[in-house]
C-alpha cells in the first residue's frame, strides 16, 4: 500500500460471523482495515477470507498499529465483534479495549456486532512464543495470553444484536 491512507477508515476488530460481511457491498475497497488478532491471527484469517470472497481486499494491520490511524485522524468508525452483552457492557475479543479507549479519546463511534463463538478465556502461553511456525522468544520465557476482555458501555456507541 502507498503511504497515502484513506480518509475514512473502517476498523474491524475481532472475529465476525460470516453473514456480517454482506453489509460491505458498496463500500470503497481501500477503506476496510482489519487487525491481525494475535496469537493465531484468527481475526485476519477469518475476516480477510470473508471479505476476499466478496471481492473486497482488506488492508491488514498488526494489533499495535491502529493508534497510528487515530493519531492521523483517518478512522471513521470502529466495528468490533462481541461474545456476550450485558447492561454494563460487553465481552469482546482481546484488543477491543485498546480501540475503545482510542475511539473515546478521538470521538469516533464504536459499534458492536455478534462475533463467532470464542469459548476460551485464555490461550496456552506457548501460543505467544512462536509466530508463523518460528519460535520468537527465548526458552524459559513466560507468557500471558488472554483472548477476551471486558468493554464498558461508556465506550460503546451502539450494539447490534
Amino acid at each position: 500500500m502507498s503511504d497515502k491512507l484513506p480518509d475514512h477508515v473502517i476498523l474491524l476488530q475481532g472475529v465476525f460471523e460470516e453473514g456480517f460481511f454482506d453489509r460491505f457491498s458498496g463500500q470503497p475497497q481501500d477503506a476496510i482495515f482489519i487487525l491481525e488478532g494475535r496469537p493465531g491471527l484468527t481475526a485476519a484469517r477469518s475476516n480477510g477470507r470473508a471479505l476476499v470472497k466478496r471481492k473486497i481486499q482488506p488492508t491488514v494491520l498488526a494489533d499495535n498499529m491502529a493508534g497510528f490511524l487515530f493519531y492521523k485522524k483517518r478512522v471513521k468508525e470502529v466495528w468490533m465483534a462481541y461474545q456476550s452483552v450485558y447492561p454494563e457492557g460487553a465481552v469482546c475479543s482481546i484488543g477491543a479495549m485498546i480501540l475503545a479507549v482510542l475511539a473515546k479519546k478521538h470521538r469516533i463511534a464504536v459499534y458492536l456486532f455478534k462475533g463467532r463463538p470464542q469459548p476460551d478465556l485464555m490461550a496456552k502461553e506457548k501460543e505467544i512464543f512462536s509466530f508463523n511456525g518460528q519460535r520468537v522468544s527465548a526458552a524459559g520465557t513466560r507468557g500471558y495470553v488472554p483472548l477476551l476482555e471486558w468493554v464498558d458501555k461508556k465506550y460503546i456507541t451502539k450494539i447490534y444484536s
Partner: protein
Amino acid sequence: MRRSKNRSIKESPLFWPVHWKGDVLSVLDETLIPRRLNYIKVHTTAEAVKVIRDMKTRAFGQFLVVLNTFLLEINRHKGSEQNLVKKLEKTARALNNSRPTFPFAEVTSIVVGWARKAADDQLNVRESLIKNINGYLQGIRFRRLERVKKIASLIKNRDSILTHCNVSGELAMAARICQEEGKDIHFFATETRPYFQGSKLTAWELGRMGASVTLIADNAVASVMADGLVNKVIVGSDRSCANGDFANKIGTYPIAVLAKEFGIPFYVLTQPSNTIPRGEDIPIEIRQEKELLTFNGRATLPFKARGFYPGFDVVPHEFITESLPIDVR
C-alpha cells in the same frame, strides 16, 4: 542488601552493541537474538547503511553505527585532509538518508562540523576527529549509565512495569540493580509486532539479568492495565521534539493513551532535540507491506492482502508523566 555506589553495573549486550575488532566494525545482529549472538562485520559506509536499513541494528545501536562509521572512513582514508573532509561529508549524507524517522543528521552534522573546523584551524583533521568522536562516545556511555541508575531509583519495590519494544539494555540493567537492592519487581513486555523486539530482545535480556518478565501480545496491553496487573509504563523513544512530543516504535501511542485512561504513570527515555517543533512534524517511515505480511519467508495469511506498516507512533507530550533525558547534542 544495598548496592555499593562504586560497584559496576552488569551490562546487557544490547547496551553497547557495536565494537571494534582491529580495523573492522562489529555490529551485533539483533535479528538473530535470542537464537545466538552474532556480529556483522562492517567495512564501509555502504555496509553501515545496509545494517541500519535492514534493521540488523536499531535504536541506540544505529547511533553507534553512525558515529563509528566516521571512524571507519577516517581509518581507511589515504588521501589529503581536504579530501577527508569531503569524504566525511559524503558519509554523513549517506547515513542521514538511511532511515527517515531518525535524526541522524543531528549527530552527523556535529562530526562534519568538527572536521570542517579542524581543517579551517589547520589542525590534523584525522587526529582531531578521532579524539572528538571517542570523547563524545565516552560521554554518551557515562550518561547512559547514569540514566540506568535513575531508572532503577524510579522503580519501587513491588512495581509491575509494562514496556514496549526494546530500550537497548538500559531497562534490563536497571532491573539488575533493583534485584541487587532486594526489590521485588515484575515486567510485562509486549511482543512488538511485526519485528518482535519485545519477544526477541526485551524478554530475553530481562530474563538474562534475572528479572521476572512475562510476554504478552500487543493486543493485551489494555487488559493488563484494566486488571491492575501493571502500575508503571517505561518506554524508550526514537526521536524527540522541541515541545516534548516524541516518536517511538509503533504501538507506543495506544499504550500512552491507555495509561492516561487508567491513571498509570508513563515514563519515557528521551534524547532532547529542538530540530523538530512538534510531533506532527516528524516524518514517519512507512515500511514495506511484505515485512508485515510475511515472516520467516512465508506469508502469514492464506489470501492476497494489502498491508500497512507505519514504523513509528507519535506520542504527544501531554501523555508523559516524566521524561528521563540524555542530551546527545
